[in-house]
């Protein structure tokens, strides 16, 4: 099971800050987004927004990163500190 994390408004849309998710045949971030969309259209759509970035195992990914069931995969909307 991969560990999914949702920050900011994505947490509200997902209804949880974190969730375990069996990847099965899913092996990239974009495939994961598609799989999530099948379960939850609203969340899948929000994750598809180009402003949403993905952090795998605490490292910012660029483009379509490979993922496995051991990974922690965080989705982050635009940040706003200060």
């Amino acid at each position: 099971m991969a560990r999914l994390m949702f920050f900011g408004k994505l947490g509200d849309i997902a209804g949880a800050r974190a969730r375990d998710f069996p990847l099965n045949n899913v092996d990239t971030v974009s495939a994961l987004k598609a799989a999530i969309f099948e379960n939850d259209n609203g969340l899948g759509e929000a994750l598809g927004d180009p402003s949403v970035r993905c952090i795998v195992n605490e490292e910012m990914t660029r483009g379509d990163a490979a993922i496995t069931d051991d990974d922690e995969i965080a989705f982050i909307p635009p940040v706003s500190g200060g």
Partner: protein
Amino acid sequence: MIRVLETPFDLNAEIAAFNARAGAAGAVVTFSGAVRGEAGERKVTGLELEHFPGVTERSISAIEKEARRRWPVTDIDIVHRIGRLAPGEPIVLVCVAAAHRREAFEAADYLMDFLKTEAMFWKKELRSDGAEWIAPRADDYKDAARWKEND
């Protein structure tokens, strides 16, 4: 020193401690941001700030490191709140010490621009008419773009 705190901090005590430690450098600039009680015409009842433990601290550390690379500052303190904040409470404090004022001003200004647009925080505004996740304003991105180096 970088701290991300879940509970209120004493702004004045933090500034006093920084001055005691770093003030002899000659020039000290501090910036503090507090939760405002209104957003436009609407009353704000509080803020909720989320962070990504570990990743947030490293994102701030990267911003601080870049500021130290750009300016010969002698000391930097960054304190940032997370959790639930009430109007009037301090959210963020940046203290910079340097030999001359220009460096201290620019480094503090730089740190704030990137704490606003790159540090890993998410901010929800709690208002009488509901709650809203806040994205940086266009001006915040414009401010951060001022520091782009020609390289």
